[in-house]
C-alpha cells in the first residue's frame, strides 16, 4: 500500500467510531431483535396500564385466581353461581332464571315485599351490570329483573385477591424498569465521576480513593439495604437511589482502569505535549473514550438492579402493596406455584425475557464498540 495522499471525493463525511459501532450493532441480529423487544416492553409497560380495562388495584371478589383465558368472564357455568350468590345477598329466593344472549332474566320471590333497591346487589356482583326491574307482581312479592352480563377479559388470569394479572404485570414492568434505569443512572453517574477522577488524578489520590471503594465493597450488602430501609423508610424512590449509590463500586473500578490506560495513550501524551490543560484532556480525550465501556456496563447494570429489586421485594424489603414489581409478583407466584402457576409464569416470563434482551444488547454493544479485529 503506497501512501498516496488521501484522494477523497469532496464533502466526504467520515464515519465516526460511533457510526461504525452502530453499523456493527445493526448487523447483529440478536442484539437488534433484543433492542426492539426492549422498546416494545418499555412502551407496553409505560402506556399499557392505561389501555388495560382493569386497574391494577381493582379487586374482583368474584374472580379470585381465575386462570388466564382468551374468552371473556364470566363463563357460562359461572353465571348461575354468581347469580345465586347475588340473590342470596338480597335475602330472597330464586324462582326461575334464564339467559337470553347477553342478558339474564331472573324472577325472585320473597315472603315480604321486595324493595326495588335490592337490584344493586346484582349490580355489585362483578358479573352483572345494568340491572333493571322488568316486572313486579302486584303484591310486590315477586320481581323479575334483567341484567346484562358484564364481559370481562382476564388474559393473564387474576391473582389471589382477584386483581387482573395483566395490568399488574405491566404496572410491575413500569416499576422494575424505572428502578433499573434510576438506580443504573445513579450508579453510572457516581461511578464514572469517581472512577474518572481517581484514574485521571492517579498516584496517591487514586490509591486513597480506591481503598475507600474497597472498604465499601466489604460491607455486607443486605445489611446495608436494611439500614437504608430503616433510615429512609419504605420510600422506594429514595431507596433505589440508595441502591444505585451502592452499585457504583464496580463502575468506579472499571472506569478508573480505563481512565488509567487512556491516560497512558499516546494521544493523551500528544495533547500534553501540545500544552492542553487537564480539563481539556479530561473532556476531549478521556471521557469520550470512556463512554464505550460505560454504555456496555450500563446495559449490564440495569438487569443487575432489576434482579436486586426482585430479590429485595421477594424478601419483603422492596416495593410495597398495592404497588408491585416483577420481583413481588414472582414472589407471590412462587407461593402459588401448585395451584395457580400463571401467577408465576407471566411475571417470570417478562422478567426473564427483559433480562435476556438487556444482556444481548450489552453483548452486542460490547462487540460493536470494541471489535478486536480493528
Amino acid at each position, binding site marked *: 500500500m503506497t501512501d498516496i495522499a488521501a484522494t*477523497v471525493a469532496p464533502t466526504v463525511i467520515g464515519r465516526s*467510531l460511533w457510526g461504525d459501532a452502530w453499523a456493527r450493532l445493526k448487523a447483529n441480529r440478536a442484539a437488534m431483535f433484543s433492542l426492539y423487544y426492549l422498546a416494545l416492553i418499555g412502551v407496553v409497560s409505560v402506556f399499557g396500564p392505561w389501555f388495560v380495562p382493569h386497574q391494577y388495584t381493582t379487586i374482583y371478589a368474584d374472580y379470585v385466581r381465575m386462570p388466564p383465558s382468551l374468552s371473556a368472564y364470566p363463563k357460562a357455568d359461572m353465571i348461575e353461581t354468581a347469580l345465586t350468590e347475588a340473590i342470596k345477598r338480597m335475602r330472597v329466593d330464586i324462582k326461575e332464571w334464564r339467559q337470553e344472549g347477553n342478558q339474564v332474566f331472573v324472577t325472585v320471590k320473597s315472603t315480604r315485599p321486595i324493595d326495588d333497591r335490592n337490584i344493586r346487589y346484582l349490580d355489585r356482583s362483578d358479573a352483572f351490570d345494568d340491572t333493571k326491574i322488568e316486572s313486579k307482581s302486584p303484591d310486590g312479592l315477586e320481581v323479575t329483573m334483567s341484567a346484562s352480563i358484564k364481559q370481562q377479559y382476564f388474559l393473564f388470569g387474576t391473582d389471589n385477591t382477584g386483581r387482573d394479572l395483566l395490568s399488574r404485570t405491566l404496572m410491575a414492568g413500569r416499576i422494575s424498569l424505572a428502578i433499573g434505569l434510576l438506580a443504573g443512572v445513579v450508579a453510572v453517574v457516581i461511578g464514572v465521576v469517581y472512577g474518572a477522577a481517581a484514574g485521571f488524578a492517579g498516584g496517591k489520590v487514586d490509591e486513597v480513593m480506591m481503598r475507600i471503594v474497597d472498604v465499601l465493597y466489604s460491607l455486607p450488602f443486605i445489611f446495608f439495604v436494611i439500614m437504608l430501609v430503616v433510615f429512609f423508610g419504605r420510600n422506594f424512590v429514595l431507596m433505589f437511589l440508595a441502591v444505585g449509590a451502592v452499585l457504583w463500586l464496580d463502575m468506579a473500578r472499571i472506569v478508573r482502569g480505563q481512565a488509567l490506560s487512556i491516560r497512558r495513550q*499516546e494521544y493523551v501524551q*500528544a*495533547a500534553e*505535549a*501540545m*500544552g*492542553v490543560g487537564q480539563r481539556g484532556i479530561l473532556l476531549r480525550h478521556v471521557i469520550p473514550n470512556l463512554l464505550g465501556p460505560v454504555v456496555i456496563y450500563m446495559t449490564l447494570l440495569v438487569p443487575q438492579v432489576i434482579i436486586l429489586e426482585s430479590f429485595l421485594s421477594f424478601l419483603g424489603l422492596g416495593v410495597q402493596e398495592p404497588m408491585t414489581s416483577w420481583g413481588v409478583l414472582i414472589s407471590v407466584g412462587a407461593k402459588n406455584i401448585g395451584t395457580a402457576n400463571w401467577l408465576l409464569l407471566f411475571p417470570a416470563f417478562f422478567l426473564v425475557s427483559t433480562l435476556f434482551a438487556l444482556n444481548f444488547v450489552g453483548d452486542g454493544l460490547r462487540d460493536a464498540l470494541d471489535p478486536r479485529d480493528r
Partner: protein
Amino acid sequence: MAASETILSVKDLRVRFRTLDGAVEAVKGINIHVKSGETVAVVGESGSGKSQTMMAAMSLLASNGEATGSVDYRGRNLLTLSKSELNKVRGRKISMIFQEPMTSLDPLYSIGNQLIEPIRRHRGLNVAEAREEALKLLRLVHIPDPERRMKSYPHEMSGGQRQRVMIAMALANDPDILIADEPTTALDVTIQAQILMLLAELQRKLGMAIVFITHDLGIVRRFADRVYVMRQGEVVEEGEAEAIFVNPQHAYTKMLLAAEPTGSKAPPPANAPVLLEGRNVEVTFRIGGGFLAGEPLMLRAVDHISIRLQRNQTIGIVGESGSGKSTLGRALLRLLPSDGLIRFGDRDISQADRQAMRPLRRQMQLVFQDPFGSLSPRMTVGQVITEGLLVHEPDLSGKQRDQRAVEALREVGLDPNARNRYPHEFSGGQRQRIAIARAMILKPRLVVLDEPTSALDRSVQKQIVELLRKLQADHELSYLFISHDLSVVRAMADYIIVMKQGKIVEEGPTEAIFSNPQHAYTQTLMAAAIDVTRFRLSA
C-alpha cells in the same frame, strides 16, 4: 541447494473477508510453490496479503475470512482437511514463528516447560528424554547457558532470545517447512542480523524449507533463493532472488528496491543560534522498593547527557530499545521530570512547571512512533489537528481554525477533505502525516520526532522523510530525530548521538560517524545494519 521436489504449492488462492462494507478480497488468486530445502521469501508492504496467504494455508484466518483455491502439502489440500488431520501437519510438518516473540510465548510457564511439553506430546518421549531434546534445541539456536535458561520465564529474556526460543519450539518436531512471519521486525538491528544468520545456519544444518515473510526486500537478498513480490493481494513479480535484485522487472519491485531513504542534510552554519541546550540531563525512574519494600530501586534512564541543538539542525539520536533515547527526548521537552540544566532559546526551563511551560509548548512539538495510538480515535482529523490552536490561539473562530487545518493538511500532502474523517479511516503513512500536521499547525521551532518512521512501510518511510526535510527547509525547524534505523537517520540528521544504556557512547557529524565509527558499539550497530540491508554474506 539441492531443491527438487515441490512440497508446498499454493494454487489460485483467494482470501476474502466479510466486513460491514461488503467482502474484501485480501488475496486475489495467487500461485506460490516451495521446494524442499529452499528458502522462499514473500515480500510486500502492509496490506499486500502476504501474511494472510500463509494464515490461510495454516487455516488460521480470522473468523470472518474464507479461503478458496488449493494449498497442497505433499499432495494433500490443507484447505479441505479436517481439524484433526490438519493438526498432524500444522505444527509438526509445517511450523510457524511470528513477529512478536513476547506474545507468542506463554508468560506463566518457564521456557523449559514450554519446550518439553510439545516434544513429549508429539514424540512420546519421557520427561528426561524430552528435556535432553529441549536442551539440544536451545543449543541449536545458540541460547547461552541453556540449562539455566530452561528455568527462565519469557519476561526474563530479551527479545532476541525469545525469538530464538520461538525458533527452537518451531523446530522441535523437525518440520519440513518453517514459515517465518516477519521474525525480525520487532527486534533491534544487531539482533535482526543474528536471527537471520541463525535461520540460515539452521537451514543448512537441518535442510528444511523456509518461507520468509517480510516487508523489507533488502534483508532477503542474502537469505532467499526465490522471491515473490506481492502487492494488493497479487504476486507482481517472482523469480530467483539474485535476478530480482539485479534486474527487477515490475515497477513496484523497483520502487521497493529504491525505497531506502537517500540524500543527506547539510549542517547549519556554525553560528546559527542554539535553540535547545541540555547540560548534564539526568532522568531516574523508581522501579521498585520504596515504602515498606526496602531501599528504593532506581533506574537511571538518562545519565548525564549534554546536547546542543541549533536552529535548522537535525540531531539524530540512535540507540537500541531501552537505551533511553525516547526518555531523553521527553525530558528535554519537560514532559518528564529531570535533573540538570535545560535551556530553550534564552530561557532556562529546567524548573518550569506546567503553567510556565504552556506558552512554550507551541514552539516545541512531539511526533510519536505509533501513528495508530497517537491520534485520538473519537475525534475527527480536523479536531485532532486544531486541538493545539484551542490552547495557544483561543481567539480564533471555528472558521479560522478550519482554514488553518486546511492549510496544515495541504502542507503535509493530504487532501483537506480529510479533516471531516476519522483517524481509523487512514493508512499508517497518512496518519503519520496527520500527526505531523498537528505539530506543524502551531508553527513550532523545535520538533522531537520519536521514531516517526519505524511503524511504516519502507516506501512510505521515504515519503515521510522527504516531507520532514521539506518542512524543515520551509520553516527553519530544528529536529531531534530519535530512531533505531540508521538508514533513515543518515538521510535526516546532520549530527548523530549514539546512546547506550542512558549514556552517550559516541557523537559527531553524520558522515564522520558513518564513515569512521570509533566506539565498538557504534561499529556493531553499523555492521549489523549493513549486514542486514546491503550485502550477501558468503553463505
